[in-house]
């Protein structure tokens, strides 16, 4: 059993290191981090009215996470497999004695690390609410944790679709559409439409599959195991699809 797992995961650390290096060897990661932080700041201050709520917490900050992830994380993930295809290096990769799961997870983890770096760089915001008042720090830590899990779920969509389409642009567009469906499903505007069309029961089910709904508890500082399981399960599902779509190439 362990032997089997080791074989499947062979190549994980080599792939992880190479992909992380690739993000930082090109302006990709820096541009991503800069624009992501700028957008997050802009939404938090301008649209979220961070200073006007009169409460020292990070709710106006976390509320934008699903929406920004929906656009930014597919952009981060789109190159993972499409780039290999464009440069022909997928051929090289498949000729190595490696397991596909190790490749898939290595790539996903590299993108996830860049996303985590983005979250890490928002820590000054956490520091400033502590300077301004006395927020519930456990609740904020929890929201950060669930937000990171949610980022993994968004990235897993982008990575899997990148393996499926083999083109960065197509992969980005399709990933954003899928991410939008799973994000907006919890949006009141969409939910009320679904409710009027298919009834309350169905609307509840749709809402349960939404990232926004699953992230709500964490924003209020409540640890819901259901949400943690949802994001991990969602990521696992797309990792599985990613493995399928990446190995499909062997069939020609």
């Amino acid at each position: 059993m362990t032997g089997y797992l080791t074989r499947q995961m062979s190549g994980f650390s080599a792939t992880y290191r190479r992909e992380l290096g690739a993000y930082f060897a090109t302006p990709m990661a820096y541009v991503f981090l800069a624009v992501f932080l700028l957008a997050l700041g802009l939404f938090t201050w301008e649209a979220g009215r961070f200073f006007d709520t009169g409460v020292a917490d990070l709710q106006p900050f976390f509320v934008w996470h699903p929406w920004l992830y929906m656009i930014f994380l597919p952009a981060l993930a789109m190159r993972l497999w499409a780039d290999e295809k464009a440069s022909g290096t997928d051929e090289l990769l498949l000729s190595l004695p490696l397991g596909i799961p190790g490749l898939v997870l290595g790539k996903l983890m590299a993108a996830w690390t860049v996303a985590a770096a983005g979250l890490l760089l928002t820590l000054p915001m956490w520091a400033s609410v502590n300077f301004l008042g006395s927020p519930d720090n456990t609740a904020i830590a929890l929201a950060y944790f669930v937000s990171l899990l949610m980022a993994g779920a968004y990235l897993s969509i982008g990575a899997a679709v990148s393996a499926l389409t083999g083109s960065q642009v197509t992969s980005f567009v399709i990933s954003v559409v899928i991410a939008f469906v799973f994000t907006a499903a919890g949006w009141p505007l969409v939910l009320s439409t679904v409710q009027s069309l298919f009834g309350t029961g169905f609307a509840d089910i749709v809402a349960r599959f939404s990232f926004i709904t699953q992230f709500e508890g964490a924003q209020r500082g409540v640890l819901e195991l259901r949400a943690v399981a949802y994001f991990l399960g969602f990521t696992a599902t797309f990792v599985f699809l990613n493995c399928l779509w990446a190995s499909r190439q062997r069939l020609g």
Partner: protein
Amino acid sequence: MLEVKALEKSYGSKHAVRGVSFTVEKGTVLGFLGPNGAGKSTTMRMIAGVLEPDSGDALIDGKSIISDRRAAQASLGYLPEGAPLYEDMTPPEFLRFLAEARALPRKSRRDAVDRAIADARILSVSHQRIGDLSKGYRRRVGLAGAILHDPPVLVLDEPTDGLDPNQKRAVRALIARMAPSKAIIISTHTLTEVPAMCHRAVLIDRGRVIADDTPAGLARRSEDGSLESAFSRLTDQVEDETL
């Protein structure tokens, strides 16, 4: 060393490879010749484990690419067509990535990388990004990657294609240096380099082996005794038969 057994592959309705078989012993450089679209690359990709054959098998150092893929791939060095590389890396970074991915013992990784860099003569460009290298150097970096783990079998898809005469000579010299200890298959379009580089030549057309001979033996099959006219005669002949 390398035993290719009745490999078959179709893409949709196109039957690209129809039962290709041959063997290559240690110390032999086999020229893999054929017109464009004859199935050379498809065959080589199947041997490298990149593409799954519809049927047939390839044994690399006795290990099946079908039932024991990873062990077979560990014994094989493969240079894909066009020598694709990670352009954002420097040659040593690229080779270290391959050493780690191939799970070479940690202690011997540095030696393997140093040796491949020396053998492929790419030391002078070690600090440059691969994307900035000339075509000749890129090809040599690709070759360094293929020989990094000192595999008993090498599959090189058009290693000299698109290179200038000096670069070609350098690549040929590298192959000649490695030849005694390995079984090597090389596909090429440049027939003139076959007699100088290869001990044997397999000619394929439309997915089938139509000749398996020494370069000199192959050349004798034409009226004027040149490999080129033998090539066109043998491949044309098949065309006539099917008409």
